[in-house]
């Protein structure tokens, strides 16, 4: 784009490809290309660099809407429930968040409410060790709601600042699994007013348009209050967030940029777009 001297069809095709390939999706891309074409028609822009800047601004405005980082207000405890489909990085993100909170002087408790997946509890316990957070768990195969109940009681009695609930990955179209999440939410709400204070959906940056379906169905079932996007250290750009942001107001909280405890960043719209364009 930098070497282009004028705005022509080829430039627009190149921009279209960049957007599609970043996973922004056909609808979003077509909409933005149309806007750019209109600007050119109206004579508002004739330089490729300026066109690219307009495009960047358009995308920024779409994303800025949801650029709201998580504020853990003083509660006892502030309850965060982490949900999402299989393998996206929920457990790892919880470990990172716990590390950040403890580094900031907060006390953290983790609830090992993934009682289904093999060695999920052991995995969370290792992260708890790394982060300086204790893990509440039950022996294998027990009811996730029971683990959550115990964790809530423990957090309340200890005056813990933050309780993070790890749940099993699940396909969002499986109603019985979504019911299980609703039950966990009810248990939390029953014990603590206004809780869960954050229902954080974890998305994988390598996922394509299916992220939209995930956001819609998890939101429908539980009401999502925040989104974390992992694996942005790979070559996937996570452009589907633009499509999501265009349709719904759900704050983008964090991005995951690696597998270590420090590999967590607050979402930043500008940085996010710069990685795409």
């Amino acid at each position, binding site marked *: 784009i930098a070497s282009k001297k004028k705005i022509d069809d080829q430039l627009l095709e190149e921009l279209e*490809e960049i957007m*599609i*390939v*970043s*996973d922004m*999706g*056909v609808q979003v891309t077509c909409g933005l290309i149309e806007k750019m074409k209109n600007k050119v028609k109206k004579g508002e822009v004739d330089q490729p660099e300026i066109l690219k800047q307009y495009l960047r601004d358009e995308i920024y405005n779409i994303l800025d809407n949801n650029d709201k980082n998580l504020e853990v207000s003083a509660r006892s405890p502030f309850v965060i429930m982490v949900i999402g*489909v*299989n*393998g*996206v*990085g929920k457990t790892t993100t919880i470990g990172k968040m716990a590390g950040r909170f403890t580094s900031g002087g907060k006390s953290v408790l983790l609830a090992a409410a993934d009682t*289904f*997946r*093999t*060695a999920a509890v*052991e*995995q969370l*316990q*290792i*992260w708890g060790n790394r982060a300086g957070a204790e893990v509440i768990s039950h022996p294998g195969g027990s009811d996730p709601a029971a683990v959550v109940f115990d964790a809530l009681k423990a957090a309340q009695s200890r005056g813990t600042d933050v309780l993070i609930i790890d749940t099993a990955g699940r*396909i*969002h*179209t*499986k109603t019985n699994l979504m019911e299980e999440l609703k039950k966990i939410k009810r248990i939390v709400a029953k014990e603590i007013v206004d809780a869960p204070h954050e229902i954080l959906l974890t998305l*994988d940056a*390598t*996922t*394509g*348009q*299916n*992220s939209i*379906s995930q956001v819609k169905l998890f939101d429908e079932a539980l009401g999502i209050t925040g989104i974390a996007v992992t*694996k942005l*250290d*790979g*070559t*996937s*750009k996570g452009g*589907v967030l633009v499509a999501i942001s265009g349709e719904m107001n759900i704050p983008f909280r964090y991005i995951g940029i690696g*597998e270590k405890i420090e590999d967590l960043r607050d979402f930043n719209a500008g940085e996010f777009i710069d990685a795409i364009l």
Partner: protein
Amino acid sequence: NLTDKLSLIFKDLRGYGKLSEKNIQDALREIRMSLLEADVNFKVAKNFIDSVKSRAIGREVLGSITPGQQMSKIVHEELIHLLGEKNEGLRLAGSPPISFMLVGLQGTGKTVTSAKIANLLKEKGRNPYLVPADIYRPAAIEQLHKLSDQLKIEAYFPREHEKPSEICRNALDFAGNNGFDTLIIDTAGRLHIDEALMEELQTIKEETNPSEILFVADAMAGQDAVNVAKKFDELLGIDGVILTKMDGDARGGAALSIKAVTGKPIKFLGTGEKLDAIEEFHADRVASRILG
């Protein structure tokens, strides 16, 4: 769905007409949009449209079906052709112990799929041995051991500080000396752009000379799936592909992208979290799903 949209486009075409370049153009645009929405890679979709176009132009509009249905049929056939019409099972030839390596990005389902494959082989009468070569992910080795216990399949116990290539080498020796005929090596998830970790896979390959290296990819993967598959194939060499989480509602266009860019056969589909949730790949079902 796509067939309805195509029928609308061709509704004025009479039964005696030919599918001409003009009346195909709208149809091709519709098909391309549908493929992109299904996560088929941009360039792969473009090439696919070109081959559909050359197959469609000049074709007689058959009297028995509508032009929209005929177009849809051409697309479906071309998709099946590209995905790989016949199913190829695992390459089990060679003097035992033979080994299979499962590789791919983080979280795609390699560990669970390793157990599923081991289970399949056991049911076929082979004597599989699971090798946990992921020393990085918290509780990864434990995860594979618990799965192998559930299946009553033996698994290697890595020693402390044993490197992945050593684990695999030693497991191979142990298997050979103890009557196991098939090693299934579960490797750590890694980025295709992580040079050191890609090199680790090459070392494991050299140590174990696997019968097949199976690339495990997520059915919901987006546009970047081509780049990942291409890199794994270039740096390591892939022999087959397994697409997991097909029980979700992702259209699965990554299947076409990966097949198109590597040319390697998709061998299995992961269809759930249970250890029996694995199926042989069949192109027609995957094709229908991609087309929505």
